[in-house]
């Protein structure tokens, strides 16, 4: 075991996969010599060479398209999109091509591409360095969608994503790259070394895609969340003294419905929380699925906590961010309701 932050854990996952599989290649803007603007690919080009870790032109559509071509020709590309906010020039290649290649060629062609991209706010990045577009990709048939909330899962899930023969869009909540964050920007930063999930095996291991993680067992209410919000929800439940069951979704697609349903059937109450905008967001899918499966067990309507339906505003970051107060308000409402 080693202490790792999320950046080191992700780096370790790629290091291991570059070493194990000569077909793995990394490509993206500034990922090679520089090691990435968040340093996630630091040292990999030096170790594996310029033909395995490629700096690319600033063309997200080109990056994903080239990754598809490489994938079709037997490689296992890991493409970095520098910020999730800049993934849209690649949208057509991801939605019309990457997601559907296996389907339209009746399984004869496929491209095992992993797209890594930092997402989420809380770093004073304004509207073009803060977005959480996981719902946009979860809506597309044929893409697996992943978002880890800690270093241990980040490494295990990234190795699974790279080994997966289906395309995976892998979101990295950048606010928790260096430490867990409970939503209070005025508290001093906490490093991952203080958190049990900062203990990461140095070698190969996987965390399966398609399994939720029950972060905390409890009987009062189920909180279904992922990414940075896992830590915010833990803190909010703690501050209310609730015995909450907290579930980290980890993989939006495919969704582990069973774990969610078992929990909500037990607690009878549920709050769904994510940082992304609310309208048409992934929380709606979670809420609808749980309602369909658990309606007769519910003591209260399922509530959603999310970012407001506006672009991420630079100056009002903390009024925008769904912090502990917003989570707590939903938890109180759900707890007070009597069926």
């Amino acid at each position, binding site marked *: 075991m080693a202490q790792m932050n999320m950046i080191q854990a992700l780096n370790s996952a790629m290091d291991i996969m570059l070493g194990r599989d000569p077909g793995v290649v990394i490509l993206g*803007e*500034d990922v090679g*010599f*520089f090691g990435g*603007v968040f340093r996630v690919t630091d040292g990999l080009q030096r170790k594996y060479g*310029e*033909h395995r870790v*490629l*700096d*690319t*032109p*600033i*063309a*997200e*559509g*080109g990056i994903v398209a080239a990754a598809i071509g490489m994938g079709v020709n037997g490689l296992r590309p890991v493409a970095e999109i520098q910020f999730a*906010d*800049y993934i*849209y*020039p690649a949208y057509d290649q991801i939605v019309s091509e990457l997601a559907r290649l296996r389907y339209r060629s009746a399984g004869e062609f496929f491209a095992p591409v992993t797209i890594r991209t930092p997402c989420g706010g809380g770093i*004073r*990045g*304004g*509207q*073009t*360095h803060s977005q959480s577009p996981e719902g946009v990709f979860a809506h597309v048939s044929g893409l697996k969608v992943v978002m880890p909330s800690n270093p241990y899962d980040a490494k295990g899930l990234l190795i699974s994503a790279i080994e997966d023969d289906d395309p995976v869009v892998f979101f990295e909540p950048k606010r928790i790259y260096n430490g867990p964050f409970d939503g209070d920007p005025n508290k001093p930063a906490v490093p991952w070394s203080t958190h049990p999930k900062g203990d990461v095996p140095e070698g190969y291991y996987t965390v399966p895609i398609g399994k939720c993680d029950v972060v905390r067992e409890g009987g009062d209410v189920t909180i279904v969340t992922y990414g940075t919000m896992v830590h915010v929800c833990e803190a909010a439940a703690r501050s209310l003294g609730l015995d909450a069951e907290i579930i980290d979704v980890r993989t939006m697609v495919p969704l582990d419905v069973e774990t969610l349903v078992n929990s909500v059937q037990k607690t009878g109450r549920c709050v769904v929380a994510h940082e992304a905008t*609310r*309208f048409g967001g992934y929380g709606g899918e979670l809420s609808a699925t749980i309602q369909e499966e658990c309606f007769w067990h519910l003591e209260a309507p399922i509530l959603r906590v999310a970012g*407001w*339906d*506006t*672009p991420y*505003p*630079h*100056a*009002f970051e903390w*009024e*925008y961010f769904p912090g502990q*107060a*917003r989570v707590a*308000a939903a938890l109180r409402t759900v707890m007070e309701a009597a069926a």
Partner: protein
Amino acid sequence: MRPSRLHIPKHHSRPGETPDFSYLELAPAGATQRPDINTRVRDMNGLAFELVRVIDDGHTAVGPWNPHLDPPELQVGLRHMMLTRAFDDRMQRMQRAGKTSFYMRSLGEEAVAVAQGMALRPTDMLFPSYRQQGLYVVRGRPLVDLMCQLLSNTRDMCKGRQLPIMYHWRDGNIFSISGNLTTQFPQAVGWAMAAAIKGTDDIAATWIGEGSSAEADFHHAMLFASVYEAPVILNVVNNQWAISTFQGFAGGEHRSFAARGPGFGMAGLRVDGNDFLAVYAVTRWAAERARNGFGPTIIEHVTYRGAAHSTSDDPARYRPKDDYERWPLGDPVERLKNHLIDLGEWSEERHAALAKEMDEHVVASWKEAVTYGTLTEAPRLDAHLMFEDVFKEMPEHLKKQEAELRAERAEK
């Protein structure tokens, strides 16, 4: 038979190495021909490979591209560049002091925005990237206004919604800066097409870095501009770097960026971007060409990013420390200053006095700007502004969310 091979563009030099700019294709000042503005593209392809320069090594203006500006105009240009630089310097320091969240300097590239801004008419529409703050200086936007945007304070033109430097100015005909690279390039073409549809003689000008020319939007702009012969100037500011990647990764290793013009049947000019007179002259040429119905021009400005990419960047990780000092095309401020001294229209004393005046102006502006608040200090903008302007009229779901935020804040 030899197996195929993957070419990786070679960086000219990395940290610890001596900067080597021998890859640059240079030409002496005055060597490049100046065609008439109505010359057919096929008769002037060569310009895309040459280098328009006016100020020679002895500080004299030479050759057919000399725009013959009067000394007072040159002094205004120098003043604008020095104000841009003084502004950049202090805003960088204020970010370092924690007063703002972010900043991007244009050190070494000031001639591009300033000379071009001066060569265009105030009614021409500008679609800049984040590194042409000189346009705002030329068009006379008070620095206080720019600073208030940087501070996201109560007088912020963006109402707190945008990252610092993402200015806009409708009345000054400068379009809103986007964080997403290259998007403005084809939009400027659309604006120019509209000017032609409406039958006005306004033109559009737009700027991207050479790294941004990799985006598909670059191609969209080139294609629409050439198909409709839109009255637009498409500027590629080749400052050699896109964060850590060198211009070779945008395709600059094999061909100049100006050469993309002839490929589309469009005029392409390559200019010494640190030569105020040359930049002014080519912009005037392209503007007259566009205004008189002879179509678009792509201009590649050969320059150097003297500073870090942004306040989030550390160039010591990927390029030599002393590279800017060794850049063969010098510094745009120094070059114009020396030219003016050579003309007998300037002196070291006047230069020092002007530098001081510019700095004092920036300091005074900052003092005023912070009285309207900072990102973290009162007075602060009302956070509820975030719900406005998502749509022209606020729909019900946003009104509801606004009320939720009100309740959330009341509880705190």
